[in-house]
């Protein structure tokens, strides 16, 4: 018992040092350009995102927020004619390296979509899915339970894990999708307007969850809700027509933005 304790203590301290070492620059993009065919959707984006922070992406529709997010887990690869230029580093590694295992990358960089998309399977199997496809088949039950707890859904579903996930409410489905994502223990979680399809109460549950998850994950969230961006994020990036117009500490962006465009946007003048 005691030896186990000291072991986990040791792990913890190792974790701490690892955290400190990487507390800078989890994600770096350098001179990132992105094209859909001839159309340039991102222009020379330079960002550095630190580990265990929440970064909010804001900006009018069509300015490239989702595109930027999908650059980071290479979901854009699925779009015909998509092209990336520049450098994208995660933990110092270029994720567009030819030798990189794309499924491994996506396992490490999870994604939560705007519309909750549980699979037409049971609640349990939804969370277990990522584990199964990644060959993490040991202690599946425990991992599923833990993920559901971390996603603040366990108490609501623990008695009907075998029921179809499609029977859950929208907010529950979204938390299930978060549980499904964290089950495979990614480092980074990308969220594309995760609350915009939800009612206010479900949305605020997800917000609370995001702030808790920050302890363990690096989170990037696209949102159109300025209050939400303010509440949950450490840094905010304002995109405008494919440019990264302004990128700074969240309080700075909202209290004294450097750019007039940023100011107009957060004051609701356009978008």
């Amino acid at each position: 018992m005691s030896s186990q304790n000291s072991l986990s203590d040791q792990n913890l301290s190792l974790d701490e040092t690892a955290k400190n070492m990487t507390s800078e620059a989890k994600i770096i993009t350098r001179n990132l350009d992105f094209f859909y065919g001839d159309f340039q959707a991102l222009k020379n984006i330079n960002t550095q995102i630190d580990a265990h922070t929440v970064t909010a992406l804001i900006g009018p529709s069509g300015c490239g927020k989702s595109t930027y997010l999908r650059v980071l887990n290479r979901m854009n690869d699925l779009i015909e004619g998509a092209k990336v230029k520049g450098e994208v580093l995660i933990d110092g590694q270029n994720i567009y390296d030819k030798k990189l295992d794309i499924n491994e990358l996506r396992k490490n960089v999870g994604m939560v979509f705007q519309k909750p998309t549980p699979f037409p399977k049971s609640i349990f199997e939804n969370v277990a899915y990522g584990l199964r496809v990644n060959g993490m088949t040991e202690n599946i039950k425990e991992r599923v339970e833990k993920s559901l707890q971390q996603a603040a859904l366990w108490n609501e579903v623990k008695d009907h894990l075998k029921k179809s996930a499609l029977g859950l409410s929208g907010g529950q489905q979204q938390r299930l999708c978060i549980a499904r994502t964290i089950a495979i223990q990614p480092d980074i979680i990308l969220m594309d307007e995760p609350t915009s399809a939800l009612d206010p109460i479900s949305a605020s549950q997800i917000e609370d969850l995001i702030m808790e998850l920050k302890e363990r994950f690096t989170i990037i969230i696209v949102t159109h809700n300025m209050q939400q961006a303010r509440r949950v994020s450490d840094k905010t990036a304002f995109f405008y027509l494919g440019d990264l117009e302004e990128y700074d500490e969240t309080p700075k962006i909202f209290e004294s933005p450097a750019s007039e465009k940023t100011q107009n946007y957060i004051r609701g003048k356009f978008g």
Partner: protein
Amino acid sequence: MSQSKQQKQTIVFTTFMVITVLVSAISIGVFFYIFFNGISVLSWGFFTGVPENGMTEGGIFPAIMGTLILIVGSGLVAFPMGILAGIFMNEYAHQNWFKKFVRLMTNNLAGIPSIVFGLFGMAFFVNGLGFGVSILSGCLTLGVLILPIIIRTTEESLKFIPDDYRLASYALGASKWQTIWRVILPAALPNIVTGVILAIGRVAGETAAILFTVAAYFLPKMPTSIYDETMALPYHLYVISTSGTDIEKARPYADGTALTLLMLVFGLNLLANWYRKRLNKKIKV
């Protein structure tokens, strides 16, 4: 103005109503006609016995077994191939000339009269490959016959599955095949089963395609290998009602055979429907 619009509505509605009732009446009429003609003949002995007295009475066991064998055999030929082809068409093939060509071929294939398949089967499987008139040739011919149905329904069922599932699966680090095998195919299965039902019904009732490839005129003993011939319900029915030794005398025996065939197709439909509902329920509840 609105009066005449209303009248038009009523006329259109009534027309559709009458047509619907008529169509239902016809199919119910056919069903009951066959049912009441054949029901008095049905007995345990009829199902388990062999034809007697120049096929004017006795049982139809060999024909029932033959039809079941043909269903299973052609299913083994067509289902895996058809489902894989459907997956390929929807998930892998790009929108190009090859896909268009395959689509055209499957559509054409579906429209060809079955006697043509029968002749093809005879030329290719029976003679060309030398399988002879046999269960093997019959199952292959029937398999080719139902292949387009399976391919099309598989393809359509897969198309019906929202891309959200695919994206969500990829985002969890799943490969394309894992995504298809573990998410897309199970979600599409209830609808694929519909295609399978159609195909089975088609095989059970098919006469022309087995005429030259497998069907035996009279063969009371069970086949022992895939190179044997076999009797089959639809062909048996055809024989005893058109070219038997004493057609008039064989009338009740033929009616019983017709009812059996009808019940078999009906029963298989019900079974497959039940299975589809069960799959659907597992997904949705």
